[in-house]
């Protein structure tokens, strides 16, 4: 583990991470009223995990967030967004017409926006984690001399 001995970092980050997550949730659900929304929330939420990964190692992060899970979340986010659109199609509106989601168009809009923002948040969160892990995983492989990369190779898997 690269940072096993850095006690201060470990303690501070352990304290910090819950607050970051909380802030992300606030940004996610408060975006309708102030600045913020799914996108920013997703990034912040992910940053907490990135921090975790940096301090405690990629393997530990992957135990908490296995790759199948991030992929599932990644797909679930976009599908949730598009799914809201399909739902409004099914309910007789145009694609992404939230008016039909509830009896009152205003409520419908509200539900719709909350749902799609959530979808955005999920995808962005999972996306950033995925990208980070890919780069970090590559770095971990890079220091491993047992796997020389051949020129012209499509890549090792």
């Amino acid at each position, binding site marked *: 583990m690269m940072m096993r001995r850095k006690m201060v970092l470990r303690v501070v980050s352990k304290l910090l991470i819950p607050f970051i997550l909380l802030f992300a949730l606030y940004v996610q659900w408060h975006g309708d009223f102030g600045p913020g929304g799914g996108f920013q929330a997703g990034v912040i939420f992910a940053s907490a995990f990135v921090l975790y990964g940096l301090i405690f190692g990629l393997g530990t992060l992957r135990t908490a967030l296995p790759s199948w899970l991030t*992929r599932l979340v990644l797909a679930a986010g*976009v599908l949730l967004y598009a799914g809201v659109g399909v739902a409004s199609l099914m309910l007789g509106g*145009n694609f992404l017409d939230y008016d039909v989601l509830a009896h009152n168009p205003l409520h419908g809009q509200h539900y719709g926006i909350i749902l799609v923002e959530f979808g955005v948040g999920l995808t962005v969160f999972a996306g950033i984690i995925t990208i980070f892990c890919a780069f970090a995983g590559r770095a971990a492989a890079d220091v491993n001399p047992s796997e020389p990369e051949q020129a012209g190779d*499509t890549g090792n*898997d």
Partner: protein
Amino acid sequence: MTFLAEHIAVLVVIVPLMAAPLCVVMRCGVASWGWATLVAVGNFFLSIVLIQHVMTNGTIVYDLGGWEGPWGIVYRVDEVGALVVLIISAIAAIVLPYAKESIEREIPKERHYLAYCMMLLCIAGLIGMAVTGDAFNLFVFLEVSSLATYVLIALGSDRRALTAALRYLILGTLGATFYVIGLGMLYMMTGSLNMTDLASLLPAVQNTGTVHVALAFIVVGFGLKLALFPLHVWLPNAYTFAPSAVTAFLAATATKVAVYALIRLIFTVFGDVDPLESYGVRPAVMVLAIAGMFAGSLIAIYQSNVKRLLAYSSVAQVGYMILGISIGNAPAMAGGIIHMFNHALMKGSLFMALGCVFYVIGSVKLEDMAGLGKRMPLTAAAIVGGGFSLIGVPLTVGFISKFYLVQGALTEGMWPVALLIMLSSLLAVIYVWRVVEVMYFRSPAIGCEERSEAPMSLLVPTYVLLGAAFWFGIDATFTGDIAMSAAQTLLGGSK
């Protein structure tokens, strides 16, 4: 059925778009392939419904989110748009069945499902570009398709695929950003992003420097995406080193969609009067188009890698499309439009045939293809057939395009242009014939004389597309009608 008819414009986009995440969830190459193929074929039928609907009921305007333009995003599908959607989904429905064997040979197994996911995203992005009526939405879907394209190209088995993808990424992003700058200026002058709305607002500010510069930026931006000479530098390597199935798909669709988007922007957004004329850029565009026709063909003649040869030929063919637009009368414009369709058919089938070659002999270098006529008679015949189309031999689609183009040039009295078109076809004869000669009149290298044809799963899709290239060359009424009426609509503003 009314549901289908009502929402068909958006369905053609979201079906492949929503299918893509499922591929990632599956994590299984064969299952993803089956799923992607199913979706592509389904989408092909949807696009047939779409074009029928457009042809009977006229242009579809679909308000996404129920917000009408210019406040929301609208989809606006006219005849050409529907034709472009049909091209994309038809090519996808043919390339995907083909892709299985080809991708299994060229891409490591763990990445298959990712490749299919990217394929679906690319399809959705391209279709989204074709149907949108919102100038900024165009950018978003341009990026969806572009990002997927970069990844697909980088999957090629040669390491040069990586650099090809990165260079394309850099130039493509520059192009897209140029477009965004141009669009920003238009928005600044009009306050709208909706294409129809822009068209009605632009005449008032048409003579401002801002709008002129905006047009220039949009043309350069899309010029990069559609490989307009001399902005084509990314294309040859990208097509050469991408996996065969990807090359076939991209060559058949990507540049055409960009051309179509440019046509839309120039003629419907700027189109209150003939924009090329009123902005005084007709000669420049025409010169670039002709230069592209000749430069592309001339460079193609000297290539020793056949994929690369065809890639340069694509640069030349894009020149034809742009030339058709720049001449500015209905037949020439129809020629440009119909060539988008026709070129998709011929280049698609040619690259698929080359994929067969690569599958069997592991190379597409000219010298390695010696004696191919004997070793792989069906594949070689397909290459010859596609080559005829490139030349523009009658009864192939290439002839129809050239007929319209030359007709347009002559109607306008530009007979030197007509002669130049013909001369550039001669260059096509030369590069096609180089390949044919090597395949049929040179003996194969020692040790590979025996016959070994590509598997049926590769050959059948190739021949389906090739058959289409002949079918629409023999009976061009369908495509000709659409192109002609679309051309008249596009130019309608100028009369």
